[in-house]
């Protein structure tokens, strides 16, 4: 299948390894990935901060960049939710593409670590990803999945909320980090690099904390040491 990748602006600039993992995974499964170079940002940040006009520009821009593509995938739950609400693009979050469209749960990955999974709010409540990411992770060889306490609690990121309401965001982050540490996992996985940047930034300041990882990186891995 020909699949167009919407990598997201955040992954493009800060976490290219998430995009690379998505490409590696889909190519390993025998699909052709394309990267429409006109893409940049879906406009979510602008819209949610209250700036409708620039958001609309970016939504239209993204729609144009992906015109003519029948299947679009993105490794970001929140961007997919935004594009679904504001464009007509046939866009799937990665786990939706794998489980619902490509109908695979065992993607042939190996990741010999203990992993806990945080279902981000957009994945949980807007896309209703359900247990798709967990099913994918459960099929990874040598991976031990540890349950995260109070998983459905927001991590406190919320885009510019993290800056505008830094104190509340920090308090929510502290609770999420404490739960993550309590699992004793090596890695904390999630479906959104933005939440991961926030949680990972908090975990980095704690001893014995799991390291943040996008679940696409786990699915792309075929042995130890495959991720940063």
């Amino acid at each position, binding site marked *: 299948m020909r699949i167009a990748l919407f*990598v997201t*602006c955040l992954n*493009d*600039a*800060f*976490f*290219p*390894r998430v*995009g*690379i993992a998505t*490409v590696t995974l889909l190519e390993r499964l025998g699909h052709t990935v394309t*990267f429409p*170079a006109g893409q*940049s*940002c879906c*406009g979510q*940040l*602008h*819209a*949610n*901060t*209250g*700036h*409708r006009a*620039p*958001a609309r*520009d*970016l939504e239209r*821009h993204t729609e144009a960049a992906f015109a003519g593509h029948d299947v679009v995938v993105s490794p970001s739950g929140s961007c997919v939710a935004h594009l679904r609400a504001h464009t007509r693009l046939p866009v799937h979050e990665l786990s939706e593409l794998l489980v619902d469209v490509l109908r695979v749960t065992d993607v042939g990955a190996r990741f010999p670590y203990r992993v806990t999974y945080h279902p981000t*709010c*957009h994945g*949980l*409540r*807007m896309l209703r990803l359900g247990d798709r990411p967990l099913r994918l992770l459960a099929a990874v060889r040598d991976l031990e999945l540890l349950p995260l306490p109070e998983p*459905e609690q*927001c991590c*406190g*990121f*919320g*885009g*510019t*909320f*993290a*800056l*505008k*309401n*830094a*104190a*509340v*965001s*920090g*308090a*929510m*982050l502290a609770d999420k980090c404490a739960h993550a540490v309590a699992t004793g996992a090596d890695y904390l996985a999630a479906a959104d690099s933005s939440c991961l*940047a926030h949680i*990972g*930034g*908090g975990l*980095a*300041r704690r001893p014995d904390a799991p390291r943040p990882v996008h679940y696409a990186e786990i699915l792309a891995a075929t042995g130890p040491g495959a991720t940063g």
Partner: protein
Amino acid sequence: MTPPPGRHLPIVAATPFPRAAAGALRDTQLRATLGRATRTIRDKRAAVVAEVPDWERLRERAARVKEDVIDRLPELVDQFARAATAAGASVHHAADAAAANALVTELVRARGVDRVVKVKSMATQEIGLNEALAAAGVTAVETDLAELIVQLADDTPSHILVPAIHYHRGQIRELFARRMPGFSADSDDPAVLAGAAREYLRRTFLSARVAVCGANFAVAETGSLVVVESEGNGRMCLTLPDTLIAVVGVEKLLPRFTDLGDFLRLLPRSSTGERMNPYTSIVTGVTPGDGPRRLHVVLLDNGRRRIAADPVGRAALRCIRCSACLNVCPVYERVGGHAYGSVYPGPIGAILSPQLTGQDAGHNATLPYASTLCGACYDVCPVKIDIPAILVHLRQTGPKPAAERAAMAWLAWTMRDRRRWRAALRTARSGGRPLRVLTRRHGGRLRRAPWPLSAWTAHRDAPLPAGESFRDWWRRTHDR
């Protein structure tokens, strides 16, 4: 368009939310009390909602009925007024808080009393009725236990349904000892405290000649008022005094009596996590020999018709004040109700207060930002108000700092052109290079950044732009 009412009312935040919230966060006792309380109600609600197989259908139907009410407000107000008048009530219309307060004060004065008993009501809190009555020399005694606690403490409520949620029982015992005449118990057992309050209130009920209440629902077809409660204090207020004055927001209307069924199933499960509430009172006009001899209904607008004209914001008028959204809100759970600066706190407060007053009132424009948009409130709302969507809508229509506007416009301008975006990524990458070297110790993350990013690094490390952007990697590996 009429100017927004209620500029100085108990629905105007005097402090920007971020500052009030940061203050509340420092109170660790409050956080522990709130965390425990909200978790308990949350779990109870989830359990009893799970018992109802057609919950989603109920929500859909209730949302549709409320949308119809918002569509036909003026018509239903007329219908209610006609039906209630025919049943023996006097119906008054108040355009704003000042008008409502003046009306109620006049009605109380006409009875020649200096004390009224009150059933917990959000509408009377919204207009600051107790304060208005006090200014006219009339004492309003709250008869709901939690509301009484807040009143005795000269405090303000911090939750729609559990106004004293921020108190623990030791504080309540101490308060009763100080402020409740005749209280002597040295126990902080909840049953003992409730018993003492009951004694105190009984005396008040038996001597009161005027009661003031709100209504959870008002039925247009029959002119009936419906009051839902748990303690029985409402039933006493509605039946013992010979004059009853109800202050009712116009959005409380329901078209038909049969509409009540769905709402009476949705409300208790959503609010207290009970299958059914202990007391549901329905008052239709005046019945000789039974209940109050005079019934006044004050139908309150106070900005509601203006909100009804906003295609997105109007859904806030569906609210039945169950407070389920407060109990699941991760922000409310940590900062409590007072940080919202309004008698309407939490997610519903963040969309209701700024709409009732207009966003230029006090610091109400900071309220729509008091959310991560996590969506937990929308999931539990029994009338399916898409609170995150309204928050975003209010952000988009509200005031924004000029610098932020400029930054967002620049970012969008850069991002919607392939060459400009690529150049920006390259600049970010080379700008980040020295930082990447310096921060190697922290795994390539930034521990401290200058303002405004210091707000980020105060709580967490910041990521740095990668050494090679995704598109450069793609170019190198795929675009040969």
